[in-house]
């Protein structure tokens, strides 16, 4: 990587520092460029939905922010601090594992396939990281976890293993598990795509409540246009690893400017 890092600030300062900033971020797998000089800001407390065709890089955006993937160019900042990089002698260098672990504490993620720990009960799933990563006492972690499981409506399932829970219930445990780490930013990657239609509402209701009552910053990849329209502060339409168009839900869904956006939206609407 021969990128000139001096073009990137060591940290973001000023009055309106975004909670998340992608600055000129590039990601490629071999010759395949998945994200192409992406710029994206998410303000503190903002709910941004990411929509777009399959393979347009939506999941990749979340995975890079969760530091599950390294990036090939650019810098990601979280809460004003560089996430993918760290300062060394006045310049940004790729982040060490230690730096990543410090920064990751602010970010939580829910996956399409839940990824619950199958050998732990619902409450154990939620307690595990608070105890072993944050160093909370078991009692404290348990109280925090029970509170969250109650919030997602699973107070009667706390001692069940994931194999005994429905998909909707598992996804709600996964949300509680992520929230137990008290992240500032929550990432949702198609969290309802693997669910039966009749339980999708259980999960979207939880997300709706998070938006209404909690001051979380959220980035949500979704194929549910109706939900995105209802809940988002802003919607980004991805195409070929770039943001083709973005705007308020009313603008983007009601009056899309770009042809690709129009095509995509009419195709999804037709599919139902």
């Amino acid at each position, binding site marked *: 990587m021969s990128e000139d890092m001096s073009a990137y600030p060591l940290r973001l300062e000023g009055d309106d520092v975004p909670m998340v900033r992608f600055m000129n971020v590039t990601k490629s797998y071999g010759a395949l460029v998945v994200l192409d000089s992406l710029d994206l800001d998410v303000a503190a407390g903002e709910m941004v939905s990411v929509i777009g065709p399959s393979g347009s890089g939506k999941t990749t955006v979340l995975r890079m922010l969760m530091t599950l993937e390294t990036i090939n160019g650019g810098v990601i900042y979280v809460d004003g601090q560089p996430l993918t990089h760290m300062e060394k002698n006045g310049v940004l260098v790729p982040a060490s594992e230690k730096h990543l672990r410090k920064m990751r504490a602010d970010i939580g993620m829910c996956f399409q396939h839940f*990824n619950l720990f199958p050998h732990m009960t619902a409450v154990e799933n939620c307690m595990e990281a608070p105890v072993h990563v944050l160093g909370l006492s078991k009692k404290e972690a348990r109280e925090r976890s029970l509170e969250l499981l109650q919030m997602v409506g699973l107070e009667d399932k706390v001692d069940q293993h994931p194999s005994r829970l429905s998909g909707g219930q598992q996804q709600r445990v996964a949300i509680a598990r992520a929230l137990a780490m008290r992240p500032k930013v929550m990432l949702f990657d198609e969290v309802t795509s693997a669910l039966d239609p009749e339980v999708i509402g259980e999960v979207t209701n939880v997300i709706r409540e998070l938006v209404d009552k909690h001051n979380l910053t959220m980035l949500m990849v979704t194929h549910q246009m109706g939900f995105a329209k209802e809940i988002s502060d802003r919607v980004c339409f991805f195409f070929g690893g770039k943001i083709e168009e973005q705007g308020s839900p009313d603008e983007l869904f009601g009056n899309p400017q770009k042809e690709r956006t129009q095509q995509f939206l009419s195709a999804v609407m037709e599919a139902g």
Partner: protein
Amino acid sequence: MGFDWRWDFTFEILPRLLLATLNTLLAAGLGYAIAVVLGLVLALAQRTPSRVLTRAVREVVEFIRSTPLVLQIFFVYYVGPQFGIRLSPWTSGMIAIGLHYASYLSEVYRGGLESVPKGQWEAARALNFSTARTYFRIIIPQALPPSLAGMGNYLVGIFKDTPMLSVIGVAELMHTANAIGSESYRFLEPYTLVGVIFLLISLPTAALIRVFESWVRKKLGLI
């Protein structure tokens, strides 16, 4: 020489053989304990980001798996002293058999570890677990059930291979049976008894392993 089984002789040598059975069990147990732990080390060493380490461990495991156990036992016991490492038969035997089975178990573990879905790693990473914690709290508990059948096979395997330790004079069942034979010139009873004792231990062990396997799965909430 006809078939003349002598019961009086059988009962005379039985206590001695039962005592030797304890040594056999001790040898199998100790060897297995070494193999279980060392095998995990060998498996994890092949999963570090270091290509060199992975490659080196891979070669060692392949080497051990492709050469006979009895040769390895001789090697540790007789070649060691040439390098100034003089070990007792027991110590040499435990090192050789422990290492031998560790390399087999490492393959079992490797399969088990690889069977854990990638999503488990990603969830652990998103929750900010360290690599060590991820292994011990998340990955290994899930790698265990699919490894148990293989681990059980090698437990019975190591037990059945303990007679090889007789070649360097470890006083286990085979060694004792040989000694009885050369003292009394009767081989039928001691060797038959050894076979029966092995059978009586191997068969229930294999059954117990299957019970244990489903118990673990249930305990971990996986079924």
